[in-house]
């Protein structure tokens, strides 16, 4: 059954009172997350396609606190975010009906638009995207315009659902998602500093990365607290390099599922996910394999203190105290 | 060329404690003179570099020649700092900002009713003292002023003694019964209804939003025309020049087009104050 038909069925049958999904935009790629309250609304403007990139997990924090049951469609990586938020008691599991949707990767609209200038409409034909543009038809290879997170997909497994549309997938231990982290680790400290300075100097402090991040669900962020002097309006351009993104990566370490939303929404294309992946990789190395959001029971490494935990500096060859 | 965002240095020459959380500060320039002339109802930006800058209504009357006065309630970063300083401390000041009350036009020859709640008296004091200094230009003057308790009534002695001498009828009220208080007890909106002023009078009002809301309802019930009611708004401001954008309501900027609005004009704006 297709996603849209399922949304109509869930609303028509009264099983749920609302459906969280993606609403059609002006073009093919500008879908907006939306709550649908009737089958007619779904009929009119609900869209699910490889361009439905937005992870809707975070919206469930507020939606699950409203009257009635809300249905949500979860791509595999979204399901990790949802399960993590359930585990943190942020989403009220009893008020959501989760429909798992297998995923073959979502498209990066910026990449697609670069490859099809003046893009107005798109249709998929066996791994090829046939694009209508202001300057004629253009064919683009789907695999070439996937989001970075999809090119190195860590798992096609939907980890939490009430119902599944199609077959569940598997984790992908062969994912090369840490390759870029390793490259950076192999740089000298000076080169590494220069790399991050170059990337982070483009930051415009729009907070899109934080506001979209499912792990950033604090009621008031420390960077919005003017009284602490940590609010994000800093005089010097070096602020981003020194604080914001790095502190944020620390704050979500052990809870970040590597959903990739931070990098997807960054208007300046800063590879923010690399910071999070560095933490994930370090935790895997130092405390054993751990995937946030993969289950509801396990203690995240940063909360799981054991007497035989290693000293990170020692593990890297530093002196043991 | 000096940018209008850049302040000048001022000196706090006198600090008077009015209530447990309100103090009145007298400010002059480094030359010992009043920093600038103003119209009642206008505001100024006071700042301590490193602490912050905030907008305050000028409490003193333009007729006061030696300094500017600000009655300030302790309720945030800048006000906390102001409440911690001693006489002689330097700060920065820029202004005056805003339109002020039409004291020499619309108010002339009118009977005036001032209605204030809590620190809301601060901007009205400038008008009241201006009226006292030009008493012959105005008709009957009533002041309705309420606070949480007797101790929270700002300038109690000045109000009850000096103002009365200038033929101003003062109606005080406090929220709850208190030992030694023989005056009216109750909230301002109800008190205004009880006093049932003649609807030909001009009302000038300032206080917490909830007081304004219910007082207005009472005034409408009494039959006051919106063109006879003035109030002054407070919104967050940074530039006070109509540029930084945060005090924008509808097509108006409170810092520049206000803070004083006549009710009929306010009624045409989105309810975001």
């Amino acid at each position: 059954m297709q996603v849209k038909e399922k949304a109509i069925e869930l609303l028509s049958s009264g099983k749920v009172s609302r459906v969280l999904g993606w609403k059609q935009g002006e073009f093919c790629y500008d879908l907006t997350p939306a709550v649908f309250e009737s089958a007619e609304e779904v009929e009119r403007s609900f869209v699910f396609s490889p361009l439905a990139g937005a992870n809707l997990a975070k919206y469930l924090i507020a939606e699950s606190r409203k009257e009635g049951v809300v249905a949500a469609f979860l791509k595999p990586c979204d399901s990790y975010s949802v399960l993590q938020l359930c585990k943190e008691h942020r989403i009220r599991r009893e008020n959501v009906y989760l429909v798992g949707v297998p995923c073959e990767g979502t498209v990066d609209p910026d990449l697609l638009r670069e490859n099809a200038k003046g893009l107005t409409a798109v249709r998929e034909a066996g791994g090829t995207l046939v694009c209508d543009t202001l300057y004629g038809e253009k064919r683009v290879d789907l695999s070439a315009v996937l989001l970075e997170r999809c090119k190195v997909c860590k798992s096609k497994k939907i980890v939490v659902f009430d119902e599944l549309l199609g077959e569940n997938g598997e984790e992908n231990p062969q994912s090369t998602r840490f390759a870029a982290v390793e490259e950076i680790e192999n740089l000298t400290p000076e080169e590494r500093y220069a790399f991050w300075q170059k990337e982070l100097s483009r930051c415009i402090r729009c907070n899109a990365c934080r506001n979209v991040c499912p792990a950033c669900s604090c009621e008031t962020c420390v960077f919005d607290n003017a009284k602490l002097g940590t609010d994000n309006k800093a005089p010097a351009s070096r602020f981003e390099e020194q604080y914001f993104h790095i502190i944020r990566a620390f704050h979500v370490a052990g809870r970040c599922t590597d959903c990739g939303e931070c990098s997807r929404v960054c208007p300046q294309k800063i590879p923010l996910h690399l910071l999070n992946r560095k933490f994930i990789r370090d935790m895997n190395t130092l405390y054993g394999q751990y995937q946030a959001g993969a289950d509801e029971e396990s203690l995240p490494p940063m909360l799981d203190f054991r007497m035989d935990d290693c000293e990170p500096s020692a593990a890297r060859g530093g002196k043991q105290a | 060329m000096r940018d209008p965002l850049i302040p000048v240095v001022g000196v706090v020459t006198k600090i008077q404690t009015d209530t447990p959380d309100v103090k009145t500060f007298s400010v002059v320039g480094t030359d010992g003179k009043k920093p600038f002339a103003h119209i009642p109802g206008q505001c100024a930006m006071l700042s301590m570099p490193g602490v912050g800058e905030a907008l305050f209504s000028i409490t003193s009357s333009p007729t006061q020649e030696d300094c500017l006065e600000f009655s300030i309630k302790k309720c945030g970063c800048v006000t906390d700092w102001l409440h911690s300083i001693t006489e002689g401390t330097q700060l920065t000041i820029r202004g005056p900002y805003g339109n002020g009350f039409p004291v020499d036009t619309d108010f002339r020859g009118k009977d005036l009713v001032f209605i204030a709640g809590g620190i809301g008296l601060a901007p009205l004091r400038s008008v009241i003292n201006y009226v006292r200094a030009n008493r012959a230009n105005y008709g009957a003057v009533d002041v309705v002023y309420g606070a949480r308790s007797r101790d929270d009534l700002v300038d109690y002695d000045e109000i009850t003694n000096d103002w009365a001498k200038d033929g101003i009828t003062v109606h005080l009220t406090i929220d709850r019964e208190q030992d030694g208080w023989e005056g009216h007890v109750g909230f301002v909106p109800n008190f205004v209804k009880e006093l049932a002023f003649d609807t030909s009078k001009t009302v000038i009002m300032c206080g917490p939003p909830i007081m304004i809301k219910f007082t207005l309802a009472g005034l409408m019930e009494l039959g006051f025309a919106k063109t006879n009611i003035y109030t002054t708004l407070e919104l967050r401001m940074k530039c006070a020049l109509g540029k930084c954008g945060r005090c924008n309501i509808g097509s108006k900027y409170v810092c520049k087009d206000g803070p004083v609005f006549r009710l009929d004009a306010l009624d045409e704006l989105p309810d975001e104050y």
Partner: protein
Amino acid sequence: MKKIEKARLPELFAALNETAALYLPADRDGVAAFTRWQEGVTLTEKLNTVRSAKDLFFPQVETLANFKTQGGTIEIEDAARQDEDFIVFGVRACDLRSFEILDRVFLAEPQDTFYKARREHAAIITLACNAPEETCFCTAFSIDAADPQGDVTAFLTDTALCLRANTEKGENLLAKLPLSDGAESEIAAWQKQARETLEKLPIQLDLSGFTGERMMELFNHPAWQPLSEACLGCGTCTFVCPTCQCYDVKDFKTKDGVQRFRCWDSCMYSDFTMMSAGQPRPTQKERFRQRFMHKLVYYPMNNEGIFSCVGCGRCLQKCPIHMNIVKVAKTLGGERDA
């Protein structure tokens, strides 16, 4: 009309930079941005920059004053204003219109001297468009992207860059450059093709319903709730917008004093209007509404009907949830009947 072969652009940029500091749109790590020219910096192939040209006149952060607060006294040290000429090459028609919109704020009395100094010291070379993208809707604001003004207008054809001076400043600038003579006719076909594409742009807006008389009706429109429901409350739209100009003023303690700076702020942020006394815009709906009401209704009310939007399409491309002024305007009744 003057011209130079396309292959000689580096030579032109070097010559421009000889006369004054040159900024032009160039790719920096895959992102087009106005960049200080130096040897090797080339013009981007992208239609426009992510951050708009407003940055050059109203930067994200700038120092207003420095205070020395020692021994109980305060000394105020005015910050420096732009005092050297500079050239901005490659300003698109949309961004050029944004300067006019910003001027009406910053150059209204009392004038902002920081902005004014930059405006006075800048020479603007616009770059006409002939390959707009689907997100462009400058035509809704009667902007002719095929023939923008500025001090000089540049037209980049397949083979040459044609330059036309529009002001005395522009004439003087062109006189210093290694150009040959060209003719208007050389860009006629180019411009005709550009205008044909501009006419076919998919976004057609009828904004005639956004008037001051309808302010309260639009303010109270029930669609603000669904339109804003997915808004993340980030500042992306604000910061990439060429006409957004709200700012904050803050102090920063340095080791020997206090730096007072201003920085971009966004009405989309909850702390924008937060006061000790309360919050006049308590939810994202009110903040979201403010941004669009300001651009489509409030600003025009104060500025002879000029909208505070130039149709550059940056918010269409960059909003993380793809909500934008086009969707808002169409939902509130601004779609033109085909």
